[in-house]
């Protein structure tokens, strides 16, 4: 027991040093990304390819999940509020829930798994098979060849996918509400517009942009710093997905506090 207590400061010290090392390496990687932005001839064509991959590849799963989220929101709203509130409130709840919260957050979490895992695995494998070293040995910058295209493609495409997710979520919710409630289109649109503020759409996009940064930067960092072979790649992927998902939920709270209550 006493020995364990004696080791505690040592363990805390090591954890602090490890965390600071991560912060330092992450800052250097981010600085390198900004520096390499000037090499646009290299990253631009790769970014377009990557954006196409992310956009087309993720569209189906994003629409599927947001569609179900919209439908469930409608069904539960109908179950809870029928008879106690005017029906048009259903329109308000569905639109606000989807646009302010479910659309961006669910899209972010799905893409943290889909894109984040892919980025960490790709870069991690490239690191342990010396492909990144090979790129550097050829006098080429891994930032402009590998990192900027992935990060920029994510920063552009995640908000775009969020817009689609919001639209499908609302449409699915509207359709589901009409299946279980005697609500007319006029009631639904009246409710949807009653509490709507144009800032709500911007808020959704701002959130998506920050989530995109988490979905791309963290997995790129984890993959880029992978060590110790296949096991290291597995660890990098798991850490990348868990860390970016947690950061998304943290950002969700922080942005709500800053943007909606300031």
């Amino acid at each position: 027991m006493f020995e364990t207590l004696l080791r505690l400061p040592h363990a805390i010290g090591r954890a602090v040093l490890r965390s600071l090392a991560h912060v330092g390496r992450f800052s250097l990687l981010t600085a390198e990304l900004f520096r390499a932005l000037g090499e646009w001839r290299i990253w631009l064509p790769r970014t377009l390819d990557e954006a196409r991959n992310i956009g087309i590849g993720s569209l189906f799963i994003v629409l599927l999940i947001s569609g179900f989220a919209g439908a469930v929101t409608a069904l539960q709203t109908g179950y809870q509020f029928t008879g106690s509130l005017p029906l048009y409130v259903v329109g308000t709840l569905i639109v606000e829930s989807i646009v302010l919260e479910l659309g961006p957050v669910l899209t972010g979490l799905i893409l943290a798994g889909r894109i984040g895992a892919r980025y960490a695995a790709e870069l991690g494998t490239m690191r342990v098979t010396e492909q990144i070293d090979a790129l550097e040995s050829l006098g080429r910058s891994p930032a402009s060849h590998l990192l900027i295209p992935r990060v920029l493609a994510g920063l552009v495409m995640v908000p775009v996918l969020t817009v689609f997710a919001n639209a499908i979520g609302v449409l699915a919710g509207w359709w589901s509400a009409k299946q279980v409630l005697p609500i007319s289109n006029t009631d639904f649109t009246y409710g949807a517009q009653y509490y709507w503020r144009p800032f709500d759409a911007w808020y959704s996009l701002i959130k998506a942009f920050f989530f995109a940064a988490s979905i791309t930067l963290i997995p790129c960092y984890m993959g880029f710093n992978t060590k110790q072979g296949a096991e290291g790649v597995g660890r990098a992927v798991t850490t990348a997905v868990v860390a970016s998902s947690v950061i998304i939920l943290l950002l969700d709270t922080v942005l709500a506090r800053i943007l909606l209550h300031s």
Partner: protein
Amino acid sequence: MIELRGVRKRFGDQVVLDGVDFTVGDGETVALLGPSGTGKSVLLKHIIGLIRPDAGAVIVDGREVARLGRKELSELRTTIGYVFQNGALFDSMSVFENIRLGITDEKLFNDRAYCAERIPECLKLVNLEPEAAEKLPAQLSGGMRKRVGIARAIAGQPKYLLYDEPTSGLDPVNADIIDDLVKHLAETLGVTSVMVTHDVRGAFRVSDRVALLSDGQIVLEGTPKEFLASADPRVRAFLERDFHNHPFAA
């Protein structure tokens, strides 16, 4: 010329290089021998600046690698071709695109006509058919991957070629083909070559000089014959394994 002066490197508690002094003259082919895990690849990566020494200096063409800025280091790397142990080919790109990345001059890299001419030329130099250019690395055998790795390293017409275990994992016939290729490239291109290997036979076939890295230090440098005549117990221990099979042993 490549010079290492008192290079030290440790990873955690493990001292890998403990004051390495090593020189490679222009036009020479030097084999760096040593058992697995003695830091041969680490030493090679110091030369191209992929690893920085904890102490000492790595000097290439009079420039200290660790002191170079990003741009200068990038320029230096264009004069060095590095052949990685397992090829390190970009697996999402065709052989053509892999070799094209080796063309380090940006103007030539973007010149389609030059690339269309240069890449089959590089494939020919490493005894591969031009049709191999369309394949993906996953469609190649181990020996072919190594040769494509060499083709990529020579595509930019470097002054130096660094080989990291070019014959490891190959059968004796393919290992001989790669060894002959190393020798052929040194002769036809006039490049300075450093080959890291634990294959004594191959090292003696291709190199002008050999050096043995043991316990973090170069314990012997000399011609293959001097190496074989050495009474140093570390050299004897290393040679023991296949000394009797060696052509010089007769």
